[in-house]
């Protein structure tokens, strides 16, 4: 195996681990949002707390693994991004433990919520940057601007979710204004991803990657539904709309990550065998 092939193999392996990391992030976020908004009187033995604990521990653990693998492969920037995220997540976990010891104090609840959401906010661009750095050189479309556009969208999304958590902690009108403004920026940057994908696919300069158009469109759709839910939550009230808004936000993240990873090949072994047989 040549050095180039080895590097490519290592890059693909690390990319897959980053996708696992992203899956844990999304799952931990879903469980955490559900726990915060729907569960009253959380304790260490509450099933929702345990589920959130396991999923967030998985996210922290895989972040540590990605950092170490990046270090071994000589990807220093990816290592530092993930190492800083890892250390921060450990500190955010400490606020979670403190919360479990005192579940009625509003300040403790606020500190735990904001620090954990900031962990998610840090994790979103960190995973996007890591995947972009690792997989972009392996693709045919080396000059593509899509990964950079996605990275900007992930940054906006991360700031939006952190600002959303602050709604309960700082002046309501100020927090809502910041949250809505950042949400609008997320929609705009996700639209930007779709436009860039469309342009690149139509001129064919960096390969015809049509999946990116559909994936970014789905991301845009999810962002729009989340924004609509937000409007309903503010005007009509009701915590259920906030829950739906927060959970749909995860879909925006997932579609954006898939946009970086595209083109995806959904070939299960059985289908692949049948296709091979058909071609013979």
């Amino acid at each position, binding site marked *: 195996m040549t050095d180039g092939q080895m590097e490519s193999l290592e890059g693909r392996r690390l990319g897959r681990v980053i996708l696992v990391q992203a899956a844990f992030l999304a799952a931990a976020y879903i469980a955490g949002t559900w726990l915060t908004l729907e569960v009253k009187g959380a304790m*260490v033995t509450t099933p929702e707390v345990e589920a959130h604990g396991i999923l967030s521990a998985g996210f922290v653990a895989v972040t*540590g*693994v990605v950092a*170490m693998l990046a270090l071994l492969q000589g990807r220093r920037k990816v290592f530092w991004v993930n190492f800083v995220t*890892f250390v921060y997540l450990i500190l955010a976990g400490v606020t979670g433990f*403190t*919360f479990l010891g005192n579940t009625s104090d509003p300040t403790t609840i606020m500190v735990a919520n904001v620090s954990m959401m900031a962990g998610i906010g840090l994790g979103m661009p960190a995973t996007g940057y890591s995947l972009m750095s690792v997989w972009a050189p392996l693709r045919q479309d080396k000059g593509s601007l899509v990964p950079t556009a996605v990275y900007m969208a992930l940054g906006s999304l991360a700031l939006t979710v952190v600002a959303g958590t602050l709604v309960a902690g700082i002046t309501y009108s100020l927090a809502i204004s910041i949250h809505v403004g950042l949400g609008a920026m997320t929609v705009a940057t996700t639209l930007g991803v779709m436009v860039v994908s469309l342009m690149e696919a139509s001129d064919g300069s960096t390969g015809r990657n049509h999946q990116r158009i559909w994936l970014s469109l789905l991301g845009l759709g999810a962002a729009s539904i989340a924004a609509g839910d937000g409007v309903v939550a503010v005007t009509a009230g009701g915590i259920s709309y906030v829950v739906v808004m927060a959970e749909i936000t995860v879909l925006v993240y997932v579609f954006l990550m898939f946009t970086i990873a595209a083109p995806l090949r959904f070939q299960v072994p059985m289908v692949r065998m049948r296709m091979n047989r058909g071609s013979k």
Partner: protein
Amino acid sequence: METRARPGLPGEELGTLGLPALKITLLLCYANFVTYLLLYFTGMYINIYITSGINPVSISDPTNIVHMVLSSVIFVITLTVGVIGFLYGMKKVALFSTAALLCLIAATVGGVLFLATGGARGSGVLTLAGGWIMSFLFMLALFLSYYATLKIMRAIRVIEATGGEKP
């Protein structure tokens, strides 16, 4: 998974990692042992000075938080070493790290049981059982991690002895 054995060295599991990367992994294993040491210090502190066998320990107690953070770090390091073993063709390192991980998971369940059922040795049979499960399985995990570390040390020695940068 690809495992390479050098000619003349049957059964040696050198993996596909280069020598510098193997040395970094070994450093990580050493860091794991230091973390285990700190874990035992904090565990003993809780046992002797906080609970004294009678008083319960709260999940939000600062020493308990440090104890849990240290165990999380141990989990992450063990998982990392296991993944490295799996990805870079060191089957025994992967196997022993996975066994250590399973022990750590079961030990964590024991720890949660200890905290949830009272948090003191005198709180009841379940609390005591949780405490014992936690202590015993952390020791077993330490032993398994130690064996995985030995395999990495062995690979480094063999590669150095044969003068190769990469197996």
